[in-house]
């Protein structure tokens, strides 16, 4: 029972990180209609830059993390400005291929700069654990959850109350109308990409914290957030978070229980499980779980 509780906490924490990545996808997709296949690169960048800041330069960890996130956000805005904006009129495969190209090149640059070693990122949580309600949970999991909740709450306030948040929602809802209302759509788009990349970077920091490390395959975690986004239906913000949670839980619980109870599912089935769940859900509800069914078509 305590094992289950520990796994649940771990799954929820992982889900929180995935939720942040998924949220990043959704923010970008809502604003510019592009699926950013380079999210993984921003995720890795966040972790590696934090390693640089906290370990190599000895900065205070939260500061290092914040700088890393800010730098990634800047890179995201730059990507929008230099690449994405030019592809606005093209069919979807153009943006897909462009962001994939950026991801391939970006991941290479990361290994060229930081090499293939695994680097602990200097977070204060390490391998320590807390006792919550009689269950021993990893401190990092609690921290990840806390950060996720804070970020999501801040985001909710931002989107609901601030002018910029309103501008972004207007842009996402109807780009042409937003322009007509005088909203600086280009600036909003750049901001959306900055937010999306920043969220991915933050997730990268969280995923590399604790007993994990900044490592070359960290970026692949973003791919596992895809099912989260799809499950939610691309346009839904709360959906992205719930989707992330579902994916995190599915992954951790599968990793914990499948090898013992269902070995026939194969080794490392937990990496595939979120995708399998996604396929099943999509088959039943093509629009995802959080968007209303589209008008009946043939």
């Amino acid at each position, binding site marked *: 029972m305590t094992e289950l509780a520990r796994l649940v906490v771990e799954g929820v924490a992982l889900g929180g990180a995935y939720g942040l990545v998924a949220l990043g996808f959704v923010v970008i997709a809502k604003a510019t209609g592009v699926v950013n296949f380079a999210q993984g690169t921003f995720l890795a960048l966040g972790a590696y830059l934090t390693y640089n800041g906290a370990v190599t330069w000895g900065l205070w960890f939260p500061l290092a993390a914040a700088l890393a996130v800010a730098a990634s956000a800047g890179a995201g805005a730059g990507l929008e400005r230099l690449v994405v904006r030019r592809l606005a009129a093209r069919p979807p495969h153009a943006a897909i291929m462009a962001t994939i190209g950026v991801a391939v090149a970006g991941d290479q640059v990361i290994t060229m700069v930081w090499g293939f070693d695994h680097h602990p990122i200097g977070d204060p949580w390490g391998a320590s654990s807390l006792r919550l309600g009689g269950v021993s949970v990893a401190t990092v999991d609690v921290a990840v959850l806390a950060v996720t909740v804070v970020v999501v709450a801040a985001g909710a306030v931002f989107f609901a109350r601030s002018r910029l948040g309103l501008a972004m929602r207007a842009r996402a809802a109807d780009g042409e109308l937003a322009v007509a209302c005088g909203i600086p759509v280009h600036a909003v788009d750049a901001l959306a990409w900055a937010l999306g990349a920043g969220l991915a970077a933050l997730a990268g920091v969280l995923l590399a914290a604790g007993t994990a490390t900044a490592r070359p395959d960290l970026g692949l975690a973003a791919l596992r957030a895809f099912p989260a986004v799809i499950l939610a239906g691309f346009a839904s913000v709360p959906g992205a978070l719930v989707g992330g949670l579902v994916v995190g839980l599915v992954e951790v619980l599968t990793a914990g229980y499948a090898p013992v109870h269902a070995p026939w599912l194969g080794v490392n089935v937990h990496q595939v499980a979120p995708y399998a769940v996604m396929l099943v859900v999509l088959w039943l509800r093509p629009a995802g779980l959080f968007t*209303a069914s589209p*008008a*009946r*078509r*043939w």
Partner: protein
Amino acid sequence: MSAAVLEVEGLVVDYGGVRALDGVDLTVAPGEVVGLIGPNGAGKTTLLDGVCGLVRGHGGRVVVAGEDVTGLAPHRAAARGVARSFQRTSLVADLDVMANLLLGRHRHLGAGFLDGLLGRRRLRDEEDRHRARCVAVAEHVGVGGYLAVPARVLPFGVRKRVELARALAAEPRLLLLDEPTAGLAPEEADAVVAIVRDVAGGGGPAVVVVDHDLRVVAGMTDRVVALDHGRVVATGPAAAVAAHPALASTYLGPTLPGGGPRGAREPAPGEGPP
């Protein structure tokens, strides 16, 4: 059963809370040209969508040439001989006009994909016959000189006519035209009217045409059906329907051939129709 080309009975279409069509009945006989008028949002395009299968009704039936196509995929209605032109032209930009016209004849060509792969000579001969038909249609519509031009670069007036030609190339039983003259200069609009009348007369397809230009509607159609808020509010010859009181409240004063500017004032008391 009757020989009607199209029978729509009690068609109901909802768009997420908005009832676009509220029990519409429409019957079209072979060779008849029926106009569909009404204010924006009345459901005219939705009715066309419902007939050709793009939208599934939530009630009612659509029967084309005796076959019930209610709720079936659009290619089934097309197989029964329905051809449609769209308000915003729907040509494939990357193909040239000839290829677009051949697409209109899709149901007439028998080749499967395996035949396509093998490039069989018999197939090529068959295609040549269809190409010849397309050339004839193109020339009839007046776009014969554009056959090798990619659709992407066509000027607007030519595009609209190619859109019409594509529908005609299908040799349909039922031709659905959605604002075929919108955006055209008066002479071009008149040319379209002449083409449609010419095609429909003498054993040609039945036609349902949606248009806002009442002059065009009057010139092209045998009778007119007026829709408002998803319901049929009047039906009859163009002149009578246009003057129908139910429409006057939703339409600005309609105009008849020889009358004043479009959308002009209503006749003053004591004045007869212009």
